[in-house]
């Protein structure tokens, strides 16, 4: 155990957990990393490329090394940073990217072969022989790559999403963030304070220096209590603000129950979309290391992290009690780690500081002007080599804290691609002026790194932000705090032989950067892409600036001339489940049900998705073993007697107003204004580019009142277009529109006996052919006073009607029609029979009106009136559209029993089959029980002139050719006598 005294852990409780199957114990307040360290476990992972043994480097979300898989089964979560996993009882963690074990990893051989794996090596080899890439090289590379293993099972946890709106979002709950939140919340502003940690305080939790002569936890307790009492402030702990988007919108993920052994009905994570009028980035700073030879062994960590582990978690990175610890720092802050550890009884044998004038800040050996030039220890640090005053000696050392200074954590400030600016005094990049509008950095994120400066800049930042919003805020009394600012010396790496890691996880060393330089991959983006620097799971948080400095040294340019770091969302990796709201299952998109859905379900209907709708596909009867039997029966029943079908899904738009008719004349290619009241007309709508957009009917209920129908698929789009035309093109027309699709249950009643059936349900209406002819419509009552609309329109080619009643009566109407029509042989029919009936009549649906077809192709060219200005008419006259020779035809196989398939291509009989000879395709197919033949519709080159010709329908995917005869698309009753009787 390397647990020491103090810390913010609850020793009264023990939490048991396992790592690679071995049992350990920790306490509430621990992270997985701190608990492992407390148990003397330093080896936590393997690096990506060389499989080098690795231990924890950091104490926060920037950790590049200590990645583990947490949980098991479908809940296994790979690549989880041990530094941010809050310990809970029963936690199972497993190491990754090693075989057979973490300590003995076969692919550790990669490390020995590392000279062959220099930056960019794979671009230069693995090309011979050609077939070996996919058969040999790539499979090996793929297996070796990757880190953790995804279970690839549906995520069983629940997630949710929420929306917050506030005056001020404070990102980070350290000294600066707390001061800001306090200032703003006291002023009455709506504030959201988000922090990724499970405890507010940020760096204050990790430091020992006093606030107002008391431990920082005292001040934290007071401020936290006050903040929690304020109703206008929402505190989100365990919440990472991961992205800054446009107009003050931030994405954040709250880890609601990741830290619980048993979620107990809670969601695992919540995605918050926070809309903030102003925001303050108080994300602190991230310490950088100093690359030197073999600087990546377990036991080497950032000095600030080492201090955090000691102060907050009461652990040290020693392998065992009494092991010696050293510090390598180019700045005063690094020395603090030595002081804090010594104060807690940890032996510090020395501080190595490359500054010749390094101050002596504590009672331990100071190697001023010294550098660490090497390390030893196979699975953990055992000794370091120190170059000092001309000597280069090995010293026993089990843990080394490294500090190369601090980089403001400006990630979010760069999400709008704004460039950070170099601050020479700080030797660091700070947020530039072109960050996300409304966002301002405070505290260490702005380079205000001392506690006093952070507190002050937080309070001031909040005051300024609120002033912009017209809210006056007064500055709170802030505690007296340390204010020692000492920028690092510009020492970026220790030159020398051996590999010095810059990017730990991706195994990018100083030599790789030098190679990138040699190969002219010098621009920062080329360097990054050539070496993979900064592309690991930490996005280079601990590596990028150092790499820039190394490249700058090689090119002789300054660091800002060399480039800047650009960050993209997310700040830290975010679970896909959180962003999606979890596994949507069948709720991926809304489901719309027809008014007769449950009625149909009770009758055993089989349903099929039709856009968002579920529609009855067919109604199988006992004894029917194949869907075709049901469909044939339904279709035949319609043509022989009467069938009923719910067609509610067609869009219905109510169009009213003094100029309604003129409006529809401009929307439809044909003329609507001449339609008489009480009549219906088929309408063809073009897109402005001249292609067919939609078709439907317009029923004129009154001089100034139409009901327009659209196809099911286009209902929303046609409505949108109508609003555009009404508001944007012809705002002076007196037209009002509203959708009524859902309000009415619309039932098709089709077949020669449909009139007989309807006469039994209407109240006092004359449905005779004379009184209510084909294309008539009226409002009336049915079933004893129920409001209804009746349209005599036909999709099947039979005598047919569509009857609309308020949706709540749809199911009852079906029942009534079935009861009243029993002796007429009435059947309910589904989408498949509807399809058969319409194909037999050559009516088009989405398969034919697919956005690529013209009115002329559909045989509807004459409907496009050239006498008026309607949408699409002008551009339908373009050469390419007018010259289109393909036309809708009917197709019958020479052998009626041979099925046709949609998507087959059409060729002149005997022609070679290739792109150049392609003459069209089949759009729709069915079996026609009335023709006793499979039939199809399709578009065929010069189709209208080829009736009777035998051609080939080729389906090369299945290797089949079918000889088909070209016929009229109106297979049945081409004169339309039946629907007019």
């Amino acid at each position, binding site marked *: 155990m390397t647990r020491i005294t103090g810390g913010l852990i609850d020793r009264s409780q023990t939490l048991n957990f396992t790592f690679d199957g071995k049992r350990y114990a920790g306490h509430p307040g621990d992270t997985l990393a701190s608990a492992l360290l407390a148990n003397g476990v330093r080896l936590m992972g393997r690096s990506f490329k060389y499989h080098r043994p690795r231990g924890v480097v950091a104490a926060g979300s920037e950790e590049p090394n200590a990645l583990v898989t947490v949980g098991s089964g479908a809940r296994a979560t790979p690549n989880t940073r041990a530094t941010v996993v809050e310990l809970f009882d029963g936690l199972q963690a497993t190491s990754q990217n090693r075989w057979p074990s973490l300590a003995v990893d076969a692919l550790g051989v990669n490390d020995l072969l590392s000279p062959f794996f220099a930056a960019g090596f794979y671009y230069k080899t693995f090309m011979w022989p050609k077939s070996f890439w996919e058969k040999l090289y790539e499979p090996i590379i793929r297996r070796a790559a990757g880190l953790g293993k995804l279970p690839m099972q549906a995520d069983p946890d629940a997630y949710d999403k929420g929306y917050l709106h506030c005056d001020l979002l404070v990102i980070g709950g350290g000294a600066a963030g707390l001061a800001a939140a306090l200032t703003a919340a006291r002023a009455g502003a709506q504030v959201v304070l988000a922090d990724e940690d499970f405890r507010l305080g940020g760096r204050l939790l990790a430091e020992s220096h006093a606030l107002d002569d008391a431990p920082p936890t005292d001040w934290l307790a007071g401020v936290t209590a006050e903040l929690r009492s304020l109703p206008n402030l929402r505190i989100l702990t365990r919440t990472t603000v991961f992205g800054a988007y446009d107009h003050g919108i931030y994405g954040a993920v709250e880890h609601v129950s990741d830290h619980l052994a048993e979620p107990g*009905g809670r969601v695992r994570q919540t995605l918050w979309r926070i809309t903030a009028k102003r925001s303050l980035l108080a994300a602190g700073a991230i310490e950088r290391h100093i690359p030197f030879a073999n600087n990546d062994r377990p036991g080497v960590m950032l000095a600030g992290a080492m201090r955090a582990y000691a102060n907050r978690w009461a652990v040290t990175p020693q392998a065992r009690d009494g092991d010696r610890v050293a510090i390598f720092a180019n700045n005063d802050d690094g020395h603090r780690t030595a002081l804090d550890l010594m104060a807690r009884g940890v032996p510090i044998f020395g501080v190595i500081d490359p500054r010749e004038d390094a101050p002596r800040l504590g009672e331990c050996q100071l190697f001023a002007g010294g550098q660490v030039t090497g390390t030893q220890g196979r699975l953990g640090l055992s000794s370091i080599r120190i170059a000092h005053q001309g000597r280069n000696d090995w010293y026993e050392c089990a843990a080394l804290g490294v500090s190369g200074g601090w980089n403001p954590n400006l990630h979010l400030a760069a999400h709008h691609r704004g460039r950070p600016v170099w601050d020479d005094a700080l030797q660091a990049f700070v947020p530039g002026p072109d960050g996300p509008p409304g966002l301002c950095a405070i505290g260490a994120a702005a380079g205000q790194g001392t506690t006093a400066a952070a507190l002050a800049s937080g309070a001031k930042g909040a005051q300024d932000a609120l002033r912009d919003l017209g809210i006056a805020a007064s500055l709170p009394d802030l505690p007296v705090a340390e204010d020692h600012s000492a920028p690092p010396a510009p020492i970026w790496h220790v030159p020398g032989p051996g590999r010095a890691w810059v990017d730990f996880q991706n195994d990018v060393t100083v030599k790789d950067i030098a190679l990138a330089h040699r190969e002219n991959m010098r621009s920062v983006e080329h360097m990054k892409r050539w070496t993979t620097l900064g592309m690991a799971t930490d996005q280079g948080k601990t590596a990028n600036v150092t790499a820039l400095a190394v490249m700058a040294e090689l090119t002789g340019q300054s660091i800002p001339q060399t480039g800047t770091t650009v960050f993209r969302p997310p700040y830290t990796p975010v679970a896909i489940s959180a962003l999606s709201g979890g596994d949507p299952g069948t709720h991926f998109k809304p489901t719309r*049900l027809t008014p007769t859905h449950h009625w149909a379900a009770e009758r055993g209907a089989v349903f099929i998705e039709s856009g968002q709708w579920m529609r009855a596909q067919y109604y199988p009867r006992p004894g029917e073993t194949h869907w075709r039997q049901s469909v044939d029966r339904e279709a035949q029943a319609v043509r022989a007697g009467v069938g009923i079908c719910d067609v509610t899904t067609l869009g219905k738009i109510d169009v009213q107003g003094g100029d309604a008719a003129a409006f529809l004349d401009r929307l439809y290619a044909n003329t609507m204004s001449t339609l008489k009241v009480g009549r219906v007309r088929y309408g063809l709508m073009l897109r402005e580019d001249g292609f067919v957009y939609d078709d439907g009917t317009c029923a004129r209920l009154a001089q100034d009142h139409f009901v327009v129908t659209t196809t099911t698929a286009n209902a929303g789009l046609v409505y949108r277009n109508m609003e555009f035309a009404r508001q944007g093109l012809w705002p002076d027309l007196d037209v*009002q529109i509203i959708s009524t699709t859902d309000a009415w249950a619309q039932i098709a009643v089709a077949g020669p006996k449909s009139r007989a059936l309807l006469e039994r349900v209407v109240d006092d209406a004359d449905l005779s052919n004379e009184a209510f002819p084909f294309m008539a419509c009226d409002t009336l009552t049915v079933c004893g006073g129920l409001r209804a609309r009746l349209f005599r329109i036909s999709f099947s080619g039979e005598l047919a009607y569509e009857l609309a009643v*308020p949706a*709540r009566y749809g199911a*009852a109407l079906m029942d009534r029609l079935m009861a009243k029509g029993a002796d007429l042989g009435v059947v309910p029919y589904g989408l498949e029979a509807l399809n058969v009936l319409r194909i037999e009549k050559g009516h088009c649906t989405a398969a034919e009106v697919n956005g690529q077809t013209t009115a002329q192709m559909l045989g509807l060219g004459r409907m496009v009136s050239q006498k008026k200005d309607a949408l699409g008419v002008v551009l339908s006259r373009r050469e390419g559209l007018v010259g289109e020779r393909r036309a809708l035809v009917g197709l019958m196989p020479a052998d009626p029993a041979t099925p046709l398939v949609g998507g087959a291509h059409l060729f002149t009989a005997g022609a070679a089959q290739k792109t150049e000879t392609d003459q069209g395709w089949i759009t729709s197919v069915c079996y026609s029980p009335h023709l006793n033949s499979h039939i199809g519709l399709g578009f065929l080159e010069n189709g209208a002139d080829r009736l009777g010709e035998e051609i080939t329908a080729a389906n090369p995917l299945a290797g089949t050719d079918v000889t088909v005869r070209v016929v009229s698309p109106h297979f049945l009753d081409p004169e339309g006598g039946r629907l007019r009787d």
Partner: protein
Amino acid sequence: MTDLIPTTAFGTTTARTATHGALSMAEDVTTALASVALRRGADVPVPLGLPLPGPGGWAGADGAMAVCMGPDQWLILGADGAGGDFAADIAAAAPDCSVTEQTDGWVILDIRSKDDADGAPMAELLTRLVNLDPATLAPGRATRSQTGHLGIIALRLAPDRLLLLGLRSAAESLWQHLDGTLRRLAVPR
């Protein structure tokens, strides 16, 4: 009067309800709906004595309410009117307007927060349902928006009461979304 038996938006004969923690919701099957749109040059009517509210508002009381749906367009809610011809009544009361029957176009869900006059559970619910500044749906306000990929009309009738109108055909999806949200909120964090 027809002898046909109506069904609810969920295909049943009785209204659906649910309670999770402090929040409950119930389908309203009796309120009638009609839309009113101004014709060119028409004066704004006062149907059933209702002053038609401006954008983002609703007006009226439990008997009849009007909510603004868009420029020059309102939806009128008539309590217990679903059995009659509400659109005809409204048309008579708004002669220079385009009136359209909407009663069965929507499912109406009445969401209430129990035992909590300040509406804190309701406010928390709103953070999960709609991406709107709370002021947009403060008591007395109404708006169209979306929740769970579904368009809605929302009326904040009181601090503890929210009326949601969604497409009738998507009632089941809306219910699933709301029921899940209420259920999750009932679990303390």
